[in-house]
């Protein structure tokens, strides 16, 4: 396995025409309505700024000027290292230290590029910022690194979508994402991930080992992770929040769907350090085929985290009798005034619901898709609108062939 490869076509494209048509086709197939052509052509008022990463090197960065007007920096991390060294130096590695885990260390050693976002004090980012990743070099690992800094009283919503062409051999993706929210700042980070999960026999597919961590460093700050995970052969991913500032809030909304021979192990950590910090976890897992789907989460209240609050709801749905659904929460209270509530359920889609839908003319797959979409609704509604509609379609596609 090669650790990373820089794209062979060296000069970075400066316009959309130069972007690999396969990348654009992949965006289409992914079905996420970027409408980037229209946006770039000025047909529509831009509402999404795109920073596409292809094989770890940023190839398209748009809307920088409009963002620059309000002082927002949105660029590749390699550019940030050159142009905004002081910010990068101050924050990079401050949330996820180099030595955090094997994959974080690997990433730190070899990372090539990724995105950098800086929202200045008091600025509400006027559009959703977005990065799309694609892995298209054979046998490569992908090691992008993302850093988002939200200064006092600022807000940003960041969308990440990922896709990869079909490859026989497994590929490694070991990204690191760091979020820093200062006083009263809010960062909303949404991911839709449908990387290649391998073929029907479980051959090939992406190994997705991502370290994502947000630091609610300032009082009253808020970080919310929303993820829809439908891809990859193996996923280990635990977007986490360190609730350091008093009254800070962390949220994790997750849909994880596994089919075929996929193995998903995902969840979150909510580390309550500050006073009156609160967190909320809604995780919906759907296992089909021969897959294993695990929620693994940690909620902990430090001795000084007076008045910490957590609510967790983990629900798993099993489709078929060859898959597994597992729930592994670690709930650690070290403060008497902390109040933690955790609930989890595992069941299958009810026969009665299936029969009812079918009696109305929906075939088995359509009925499953409809019921599953209802099951994940509490999470879906936290996605930005354009992700929400497409995620519903993605869920239906992911479960194709799961009803026997």
């Amino acid at each position: 396995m090669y650790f990373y490869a820089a794209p062979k076509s060296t000069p970075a494209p400066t316009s959309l025409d130069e972007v690999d048509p396969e990348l654009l086709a992949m965006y289409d197939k992914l079905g996420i309505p970027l409408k980037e052509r229209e946006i770039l052509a000025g047909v529509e008022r831009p509402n999404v700024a795109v920073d596409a990463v292809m094989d770890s090197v940023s190839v398209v960065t748009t809307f920088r000027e409009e963002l620059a007007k309000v002082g927002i920096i949105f660029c590749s991390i390699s550019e940030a290292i050159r142009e905004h060294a002081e910010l990068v130096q101050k924050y990079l590695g401050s949330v996820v230290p180099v030595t955090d885990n094997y994959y974080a260390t690997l990433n730190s050693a070899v990372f090539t590029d990724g995105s950098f976002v800086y929202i200045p004090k008091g600025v509400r980012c006027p559009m959703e910022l977005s990065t799309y990743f694609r892995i298209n070099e054979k046998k490569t690992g992908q090691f992008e690194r993302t850093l988002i800094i939200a200064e006092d009283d600022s807000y940003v919503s960041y969308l990440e979508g990922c896709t990869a062409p079909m490859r026989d051999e497994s590929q490694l993706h070991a990204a690191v994402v760091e979020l820093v929210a200062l006083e009263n700042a809010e960062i909303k980070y949404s991911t839709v991930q449908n990387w290649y999960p391998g073929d029907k026999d479980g051959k090939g597919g992406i190994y997705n080992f991502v370290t994502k961590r947000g630091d609610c460093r300032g009082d009253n700050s808020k970080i919310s992770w929303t993820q829809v995970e439908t891809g990859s052969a193996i996923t280990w991913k635990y977007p986490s929040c360190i609730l350091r500032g008093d009254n800070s809030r962390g949220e994790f909304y997750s849909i994880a769907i596994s089919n075929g021979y996929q193995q998903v192990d995902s969840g979150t950590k909510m580390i309550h350090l500050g006073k009156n910090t609160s967190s909320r976890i809604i995780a919906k897992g759907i296992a089909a085929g021969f897959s294993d789907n695990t929620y693994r989460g940690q909620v902990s209240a430090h001795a000084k985290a007076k008045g910490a609050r957590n609510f967790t709801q983990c629900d798993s749905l099993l489709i078929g009798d060859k898959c597994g659904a597992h729930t592994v929460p670690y709930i650690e209270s070290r403060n008497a005034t902390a109040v933690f509530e955790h609930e989890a359920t595992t069941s299958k889609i009810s026969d009665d619901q299936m029969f009812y839908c079918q009696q109305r003319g929906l075939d088995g797959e359509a009925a499953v898709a409809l019921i599953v979409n209802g099951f994940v609704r509490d999470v879906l509604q936290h996605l930005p609108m354009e992700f929400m509609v497409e995620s519903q379609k993605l869920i239906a596609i992911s479960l194709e062939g799961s009803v026997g």
Partner: protein
Amino acid sequence: MMLKSKMPVRLNAAEETLIAQLRDAGDGAQAERLNVTGLPTRRVESYHYTDLKMLLKAVPPLVEAANSASAPALRVAGAYQLLIANGVPHPGTTAPAGVIVGTSDGAALSAHDDVLVRLNSALAKKSLSLTLEGSVDPIIQIDRRTEGAAAHSASSARIFVADNGSATILETYSGSSEAHVTNNASYIAVGRNATVTHITVDLSGDGVTHFATNEYVLAEGAKLRTLAIHAGSALARTQIFARFAGEGAHGDFGGLNLVGDGQHLDFTLDVNHGVPNTTSQEMFKQVGRGRSKGVFQGKIVVARDAQKTDAKMMMQGLMLSDQAEILSKPELEIYADDVVCGHGSTCGELDADSMFYLMSRGISKPEAETMLVRGFLEEVLDPIEDDELNEALTAVIDDWLVGAKQR
């Protein structure tokens, strides 16, 4: 993919003593294994919150012997008593109808990949052996005591409840307050359509390290109710391993972790629904006072073909001190689809509205606190129908409430 260290572990004094004791007991294989792995640390999943390597500082010498003159720490009128003193079974006087008492060589547990089970199997020389037939009226009390100077002992009991039988078995652990290490095992096979209540109460002295493994196998249509209470010891861990082996069986698993200052008390539960159409409910409560650590790890496993399993687990924690820790890991591991499984875990302090309500009726603050804590804890005893037994267990809670105030 994870990097695994091949370096041999550095052994501490407790580990070295255990290795020597295993060798002396003639179990070279286990000694060698412990020599390679050491005691489990927090990196071993089932010991995540009870790092034995750190917590077990020293192991006293293995001691056999000692008839005990003292009384058991818990008495229930009319119970038929059997004694295991320092690991040695002393089958009692004339057994009541339907009870066959004996001893057998070796330990009682089946092979379970766990260090405490392996230690018990290697070190327990004789098991108390009980066969219960028909409906056994008196409560059977196994009084396990560790007396004298600090000792390491392993005790074991094997209980068969025949098809259609019914019995209530109470096990109590007590003795002197020296720094004993006790490793207890109970294996209970519940026959077809048999009904069993099994209660264990740890009332060991405050220097004691208490380990217990309760293993259950449920045959078709069996009904089992268990209740484990931790109300003593410095370090205690009760492992509950239950396996549903026959359809239509039902298990209720309860636990009460009364954790006071300086204590580390751990319940680790593994309920395995191995066949279709079985149900279980798990209800564990923990209360923490002083600087203490209460641990609950509960796992429900539903095997691939165990359709129509219904299993619900609940852990409720109550923290009475800022230095108390309550750690909970409820797990579901589900491989069958037509199931209804769930768990809940809550943790918090006494409810302010409840306190206000009681105080508005003139009840003083300390009394209101005691009342709410007692109410919280006693719910677990509600299903115990035998009045004498229920009262005796209520007294355990009351004693703890009084004693805990002094801690």
